[in-house]
Structures are given as structure tokens and as C-alpha cells.
């Protein structure tokens, strides 16, 4: 019994396409949470680049914004409140994903059962759900990451003026966006794990018994 990886991806893509709105809802919570994460990270990147620069005018603007410039050699970190809000938003996002994915599984009881009747093993079903989650995670967090970075960038432009562009480290920002994408994929997979296991372990007869 086999399900080649290429075929699994093909089926997963098909399934995402034809359930576009459900996918959109699942992905939306991811986009929001990840864009928030990326915003905070990139904002921090920009502020620390300003603080590390010797541009006195820009550093003065930082103080005017109420941001404390750390002493030389000390990194600028998130405040405890920021960390707490970020943690909460990511938590809410995962709970949201679990919720929509559970609904998706319930919706697809019949499909899963049919596949099992046709010879699908538990791990095929698990793999299909995981691939879907990774794809949704990639798309959602890429959108979220880029959106968050842009908001942070334009925010900085407004607050500190165009001189800030020269001070930013593009590398640092890209790393932050990339970390947001990786985090998003992890959250997406984490959220689908329980629903997918539930789907994979379902007996085909239970699936058949479930009405439309």
C-alpha cells in the first residue's frame, strides 16, 4: 500500500483549493497572529538598529517616543507586556486552528472513511492533513510575516523620518520575517495534530455511519 509524496501533495492542494473559504478562515487567524509577531520583531530590529547607530537626531526621536535607549552593549528586548500579549495572540491562534481543523475533519468524515475503504492506511490520512497544514502555514505566515514587516517599516518611516532607511539592517529584518514563517508553520502543524490524529485513527465504519 503506497501513497507517493507527490500524489499526497497533489491531493492536499486540490483539497485546499476546493475548500477555499474554510482554508481562508484557518489561514486568517494565522495571518493575524504571525503579522503581529513579525511587527513586534521587525519593530524591535529597527529600534535596535537606531539605538546602535550614532545618529544623535534619530536617538533623540527614540527618547521622544518614550523608548528607553539601552546602555551601550546591552540588547533591546521586548517588554514583559509585549511578550505576554504575543504569547496570548499565538495561543489564541493555535486554539482557533484546532477549532477550525476539528470542524474540517468532521466535515470530511465521509471522505476519510471512503479513502480507508479504498485501502488508505492511517498514515496516509495523517500525511494529507499535515501537508495541508504545512501549505496553509507557509502561505498564511508568509503573508502575515510580510504584512507585519511592512507595517513596522511604514510605522518607523512615519515616526523617525526617511533617514531611518539607511540605519536599518535588511538582514536582521529578513531573519525576523523568516523566523515568523517558521513559527507560523509550526503553529499550523501543532494546531492540526490532534484533529489529524483523530481523523487518521477513525474506523471506516464510523465514517460511513456519519450522515452528510
Amino acid at each position, binding site marked *: *500500500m503506497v501513497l507517493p509524496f507527490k500524489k499526497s501533495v497533489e*491531493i492536499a492542494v486540490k483539497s485546499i483549493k476546493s475548500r477555499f473559504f474554510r482554508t481562508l478562515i484557518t489561514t486568517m487567524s494565522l495571518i493575524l497572529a504571525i503579522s503581529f509577531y513579525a511587527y513586534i520583531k521587525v519593530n524591535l530590529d529597527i529600534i535596535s538598529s537606531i539605538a546602535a547607530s550614532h545618529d544623535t537626531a534619530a536617538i533623540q526621536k527614540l527618547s521622544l517616543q518614550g523608548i528607553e535607549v539601552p546602555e551601550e552593549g546591552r540588547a533591546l528586548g521586548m517588554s514583559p507586556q509585549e511578550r505576554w500579549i504575543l504569547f496570548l495572540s499565538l495561543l489564541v491562534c493555535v486554539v482557533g486552528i484546532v477549532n477550525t481543523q476539528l470542524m474540517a475533519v468532521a466535515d470530511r468524515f*465521509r*471522505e476519510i472513511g471512503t479513502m480507508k475503504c*479504498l*485501502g*488508505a492506511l492511517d498514515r496516509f490520512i495523517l500525511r494529507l492533513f499535515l501537508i495541508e497544514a504545512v501549505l496553509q502555514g507557509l502561505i498564511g505566515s508568509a503573508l502575515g510575516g510580510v504584512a507585519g514587516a511592512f507595517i513596522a517599516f511604514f510605522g518607523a518611516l512615519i515616526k523617525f523620518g526617511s533617514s531611518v532607511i539607511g540605519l536599518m539592517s535588511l538582514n536582521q529584518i529578513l531573519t525576523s520575517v523568516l523566523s515568523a514563517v517558521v513559527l507560523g508553520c509550526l503553529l499550523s502543524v501543532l494546531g492540526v495534530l490532534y484533529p489529524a490524529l483523530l481523523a487518521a485513527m477513525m474506523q471506516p465504519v464510523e465514517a*460511513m455511519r456519519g450522515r452528510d
Partner: protein
Amino acid sequence: MNQSTSIVRVSGVMKDFTMGKTIVQVLKGIDLDIKAGEYVSIMGPSGSGKTTLFNMIGGLDKPSSGSVFIDEIDISQLDAYELAWLRCRKIGYIFQTFNIIQVMTALENVTLPMVFAGIPDDEARERGMDLLDLVGLKKRFLHKPFELSGGQQQRVAIARALANAPAIILADEPTGNLDLTTGEEIIKLLKMLSREKGVTIISATHDLKMLNVSDRVIWISDGKIEKIEKREELSISLGQIGEK
């Protein structure tokens, strides 16, 4: 195919379901022997246990006691992988609700069991088209289920059931969701398959149209076999049903 070998043998099968604190005995000891190439209908009123029996034969559910043998192999002894193999290669399922996978086209539905069986894409495609041709839907291979009528969907399901040339086709109320004429067409198609391909067809039904084509009819009532009739004996009992 050798007519005398039994392909499905059910021996002392009982099945209990626990509903809260009460135990409901759905099957109360069923013994059955089905020969290769036979067309068998399992008849009985709703709640008589025919779907449960059907699930046991299909390896979709395990009996509480007793055994089901397919090709003389006790299927309760099989592990998950072997059961999946059995469902993929040995048995084709047809359901009352068609159960065509909504996100796939007719051809993709038909070739899915071949993918699981490890058949290369080109060969699967070719065989899939042949099967769709056999059920009269060759031109609609790219259609999605919602673009097909009920009868057409059931035809796709039949083509899919035949994908890996199974020895047995299990049909649970295959005409239950179809109108009279379409149902008749599906029955004719099943009969043709049993005659030409030598596939054993076991169908749980309460569609009396099924009786004309069945080699044997097994009447189930209250979890037990009430009687088993051969086709030649049927006309008389049909009359009795009419009088009821």
C-alpha cells in the same frame, strides 16, 4: 472461476453494541457460505442487522464472536496493513450515498485505489478510462461529482469499486438513493459485471428489483437468517410479499 469454492464464509458471527448500560444484540449467530461468482442479495427490514452483517463481511467492523473468512482467511486475524490491502485489492465497495470524493474528478476517483495499490500513473489512467467506458461515462471523466447526477455518481462508484479487479463487490443499498429507472440501470450493470467478469456481488438491500438478478437471496430478520432462497424458488415468495 471455480463455482464450488467459497469466497466468503461467515461462521457463528454475533455482534453486540453497547448503548449506555444496555447491550443490543444486533447479530445473533449468522452462518453463511458464498461461492465465487455468485450474486447474493441480503434482504431484510431496517434494523434487522443487514448493514452490520455487510460491514462484517467487508472487514469494516469486527464481530463480537465468530469469524468471517475471505478466501479461507479469517479477517479478524489481519493487522491494519493487511486489512487495508484486502479493502484495496480484494473488495470493492459501493454505498447508498455513492461516497464519491468531492474534490476529485470522476477519473481521479476511479484511479485512487490504483494509486494506493502502487500502479504507475499512465497505466492507472488507461485502466481508469476503460472502467469509465465500461460504465458508460468515458466522456465525463473530467467532471466533478457535483456535475454528475445520482445515477452517474453511482456509476463512477462502480467503476471505482472495480479499480483493482476485486474478487468481491459489496454493495450497501446501491439503489437506495436512486429513482426507479436509474436504480434498474445500476442493477443491470452489476448483473452484467457478475456475469462477464465473474465478480462475486454481495448486496444489502430492500429493493425488490434486486431479486430478479440475484442467484440467492438471504433474508435476515432480527439478527438471524430467516431463510435462504435460490432464484428459482423466488417467484412464489414474491407473491407472498405482495399480499402483505
